[in-house]
């Protein structure tokens, strides 16, 4: 069946490229708190990994999705050439207030800078220049992700989906390396999480446009914060966070 070819499909190839772990933005160096969770004996197998990923998706994943979606929308508003950098800077400030752990703030800004740098080379766009100018110390990763998604022709739902994909695949890949888990079993976990990730992306998308930045989601993950701070003091570690 040929389907209805006149209806424009949501861009897929650009989303797959952006969400791909091989996209050269440095995400592979981060375990999303999993390395510390493994060291603490809290994640030991696929069952505990699934519980970790479920909690991470619902907390830091949901926050990242909300801000990526909102940043994507903000990048598409304003004049034709320039993004609404006032709203984008406000989102960055609000995301910082939702990221109390200094180690996670630093990791997020580093990843945001790397993503922005990669995107400006891969697909230069005025919105990316505006973002770099508005946040000279580098945007937080979800703010960068949302803006980059917009410049790739993606919408807020895709930006949120990419953020959630990143929130679980990073730690899942790290689990294979750190615990020697069966990659098939780990991907079975990811497949089971898929409906929840879609639900969270829908929720982020629903608040991308009309919701004031201060009212966006702020779910906390105390243990991820504590893990991150402890992890930052280690002398030897495999992952940057």
């Amino acid at each position: 069946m040929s389907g209805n070819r006149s209806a424009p499909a949501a861009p897929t190839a650009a989303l797959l490229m952006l969400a791909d772990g091989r996209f050269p933005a440095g995400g592979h160096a981060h375990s999303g708190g999993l390395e510390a969770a493994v060291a603490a004996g809290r994640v030991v197998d696929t069952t505990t990994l699934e519980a970790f990923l479920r909690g991470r998706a619902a907390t830091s994943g949901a926050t990242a999705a909300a801000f990526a979606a909102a940043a994507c929308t903000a990048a598409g508003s304003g004049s034709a050439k320039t993004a609404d950098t006032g709203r984008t800077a406000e989102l960055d400030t609000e995301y910082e207030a939702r990221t109390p752990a200094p180690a996670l703030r630093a990791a997020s800004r580093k990843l945001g800078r790397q993503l922005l740098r990669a995107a400006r080379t891969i697909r230069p766009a005025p919105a990316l220049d505006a973002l770099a100018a508005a946040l000279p110390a580098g945007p937080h990763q979800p703010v960068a992700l949302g803006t980059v998604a917009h410049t790739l022709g993606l919408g807020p739902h895709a930006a949120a989906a990419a953020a959630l994909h990143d929130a679980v695949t990073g730690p899942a890949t790290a689990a294979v390396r750190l615990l020697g888990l069966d990659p098939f079993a780990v991907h079975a976990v990811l497949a089971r999480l898929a409906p929840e990730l879609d639900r969270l992306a829908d929720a982020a998308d629903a608040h991308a446009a009309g919701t004031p930045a201060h009212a966006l989601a702020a779910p906390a993950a105390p243990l991820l914060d504590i893990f991150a701070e402890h992890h930052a003091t280690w002398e030897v570690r495999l992952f940057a966070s």
Partner: protein
Amino acid sequence: MTQGSARLATERAASGAGRPRTRISALRSGWPLMLRATAALAPTPVTVWAARSTEAARVHLAAGAAGPLGGDRLRLEVHVGGGSALVLGEIAPTLLLPGPHGAESRLDVRIHVEPDATLAWLPELVIASRHCRHATDVRVVLESGARLLLHEEVLFGRHGEPSGRYRQRIRVETVHGPLYDQELNAGPDAPGWDGPAVTAGHRAAGTVLVVDPLPAAGQDPGAGDTEGGGQPGREPHRTRPGHAPRPGSRTCPTAAREPGTALMRLSPDSALVSALAPDTTTLRRRLDRAVAHLLRPHDQDPAAPEPLGV
């Protein structure tokens, strides 16, 4: 279903000579939120900190009824007038209980701290009993030079029972914008909440947030301070959101070594202690130890490796 609204306000009393004092200018209970002005008890690090420049007023909140129960709508407004100081405590722990119709209970807390005023808010433990459905929403606005110590503890279910549905959002804004905004979600509606990313099955969680734009009395700002080293005359909120954090302003190694606890600097003049524990006694000990570290006067412990100046 109960609707109660209580209001508390303080102001700096006109004083001739001697230390300035705090006067309670409004104390309006709204059943079941009962407010009582109380006498000062034995000093603690927190009360000493709160009364640093002005004698602090002491008020306790007492529950006039069980709960909150599902369906209750409670509101507490606290206004700390310019230059005054308030220590607001609570008489007893709060046991969140389900209501007859499964409705959510709510507690909205609105706090405004005027310039150079101080609030220490020390509510007792909140216990999310089985089948409860509750949301607490705390909004704090701090004006220029305002100081804050905000303590909260929650126990996920009574002994041997699973936690009910519990949401607690705390948002603090300063003159520089949002400082802290977090919502803790626990119970059957919160995916993964007791898993190894959020609480890892710990039964008790708590935080203490401290905002203190003034260096402690007698403290030499930056001296021996790895966090603020080389930056004399520090300004409040030097690290503004959106700008790179200063090198070294990352962790407090002392607290970082404590299991289940992290001490996180949010800005040059504010810090958050976050702790998880298997029980409330351990939780309180972890929080108190980190807070004592944060609040200790610099000159009492000159050999300490990481004075924080908060």
